[in-house]
């Protein structure tokens, strides 16, 4: 029973987790992209379109690639032209939402879904579980990972040392786009049975951004945080059963805000800083 609940929560939490991993890497390089939700929507929409002419696998890949391309709208101005990252991220969110709806309006609205329990789905879940370990090892045990963290911690000092600030941030931002696109594709192809509709992400991209902070920028922490957020989301039907009605839909967001406030207080009290690994 407990395993079942945990697993079903994982199915629901996977898109938040995937998107959060991408954002995590970018934030460790010292930049934040607020366009995650938009890139997810675009990924969802493009995945449906691609899956309808090919296979679910093609849909996933196309969605991820669409997210990567969308991330360029953020990364090029921010990394190379030093544009404001907040404005660039928010603009990207709105732009990508628009593009997602546009793509959907041009194509067939329904495509083959990825069935929970299918081999492809299992691979996706495995990826969701293993990626934080890979990221952790990358940041902790490779010099490239150390270089990326150095850029995030002290850009000027790292640059003086010869670190490739722009290349690393570009890479991290594109990886973030890739993961957000994949997360969106997962939403439309797995959670909504191959359907796309406007507002499909229902703000989960923002939950991913929040999870990065909540997980204290540690890959395993972010995995735990985003999974927990997903778990709260999966409890929604039960909350509704309790008669909380509309409030149940806002519960995850309230939980995130409360958890953020709590973690801010705790980290200040314990003098915690973003972890070293």
């Amino acid at each position, binding site marked *: 029973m407990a395993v079942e609940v945990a697993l079903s929560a994982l199915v629901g939490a996977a898109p938040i987790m995937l998107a959060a991993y991408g954002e995590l890497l970018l934030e460790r390089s010292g930049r934040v992209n607020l366009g995650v939700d938009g890139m997810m929507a675009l990924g969802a929409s493009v995945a449906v379109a691609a899956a309808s002419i090919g296979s679910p696998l093609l849909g996933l890949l196309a969605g991820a690639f669409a997210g990567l391309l969308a991330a360029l709208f953020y990364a090029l101005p921010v990394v190379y032209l030093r544009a404001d990252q907040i404005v660039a991220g928010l603009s990207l969110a709105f732009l990508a939402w628009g593009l997602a709806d546009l793509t959907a309006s041009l194509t067939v609205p329904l495509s083959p879904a990825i069935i929970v329990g299918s081999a492809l789905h299992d691979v996706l879940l495995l990826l969701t579980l293993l990626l934080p370990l890979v990221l952790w090892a990358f940041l902790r*045990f490779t010099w490239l990972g*150390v270089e990326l*963290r150095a850029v995030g*911690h002290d850009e000027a000092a790292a640059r*003086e*040392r*010869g670190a490739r600030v722009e290349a690393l941030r570009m890479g991290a931002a594109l990886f973030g786009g890739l993961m957000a696109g994949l997360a969106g594709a997962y939403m439309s192809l797995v959670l909504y049975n191959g359907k796309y509709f406007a507002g499909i992400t229902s703000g989960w991209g923002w939950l991913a951004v929040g999870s990065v902070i909540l997980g204290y920028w540690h890959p395993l922490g972010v995995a735990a945080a985003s999974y927990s957020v997903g778990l709260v989301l999966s409890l929604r039907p039960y909350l509704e059963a309790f008669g909380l009605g509309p409030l149940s839909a806002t519960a995850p967001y309230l939980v995130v805000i409360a958890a953020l406030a709590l973690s801010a207080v705790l980290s200040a009290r314990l003098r915690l800083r*973003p972890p*070293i690994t």
Partner: protein
Amino acid sequence: MFFADRITVVYPTGTRANEEVSLELRGGEILALLGENGAGKTTLAKVMAGLLRPTSGRLLIDGEEVSFRSYREALARGIYYVSQHPQLIEGLTVLEDVGLTLSLAGKRAARGELREAIRRLSSKLGLKVEPESLCEELSAGERQRVEAIKPLLLGSRFVIFDEPTTHMSPLEARALGEIMKEMKREGRGVLFISHKLKEVMELADRVVVMRRGKVVGGLRREEADPRKILELMFGEVQAPTGERREGARGEVLLELRDVKSFRVRSVSLKVRMGEVVGVAGVAGNGQRELFEVITGIRAAEGGRIFLAGRDITRLSPGERIKLGLSLVPEDRLGWALVPGLDVATNVYFALDSKRFIIDWGEVKEVAQRALSIVPIAGSPDSRVESLSGGNMQRLILARELYRDPKVIVAMNPTAGLDYATTRAVREMIVRLSEKGGALLISEDLDELLELADRIYVMSRGAIVGEHSRPFDVERIARDMVS
């Protein structure tokens, strides 16, 4: 052999930081580069380390011309630069920080091996730092020594230390000296930048002295004695004029009684009406901290400060200014002037007769009046950061003159200024002192000899001597290095 050939560096502000400077660093020697603040030592070091491109001149390694587009290229050619504020990257461990430098220089090392190498080297060098400890937990001296390990691991041939001992305890400084000697024994060339005479005399094989962007002399250790070096550092000290200016014996306007603070051990001094009082000393002996205590930015931990008889020890900087204290800090932009605002606003902003709603007409008028005292090249509408350093200083002094203060306290007011502006600024300080008093904290001894009626000498945070006109330069210099 690493040779810097006729390096000239002109900064965008027009400051000529290096003028035809040539320097030869050989393997197996410690070469000290001495000079006051602003003499151009760091500029030269940065050029040699590939951090700064010279306006003209070239670098040669073993007779072959090299040109560095980045620090990374200099690293690859066997040059290592340890900056004044060693930038270990906070958030990384010592092991990661060292490993990052190696990996960026193209030397990959396995974590385990590197950990052993760091342990071995640090125990050899008397550095008690665990490879797994976080960089941010290290003291300044420890950071500097971690930096010193890197060139050993990289196999750098030339190591440049930029004023490494500034933030070190004497014990740490001695440990670093041992590291330098070790490097020398291994055949590396060490360039050691400093303005501390004593450590230079202990370590260096040769001493090169810079002054106002030029090399003014080179001495072998055998022929270097402190007086000779001081003469080079501070210039041919002209025989000071003996006359005392009139009116320098009025009431006491500023008095410090046994003031103590960080790096200030005990300072007592008096500034009287109509008097320019100098505080001399080799840079880094507590002068900056003394200035901050007088301004009120830094709290006095002991002693009392009086302004025209009133105890201001506990007052805020703003209250002190209202009572007639006038400040000319060393950092013009950001401290004396607000960047991003125009000239007129910067003048008006410092006055205390402000109302809630701004009368822009009045602001302009006040600025015009202040600038009529001291003209600057720039209109009241120009942004302050577009002014040259000299015009900024003129503007600051114009404002202070307009405010008609009781006491002006200035810190290195002519640092980095050209000859003409220096003359003008000194003249203004004398003018300011005519209606009040002036305390001039300066690392430029010539300036003090010219302007001051009395000179206090500060060394290691305490006043070690007081001198009156006619000045005995030798005695002052002796006090400075005491």
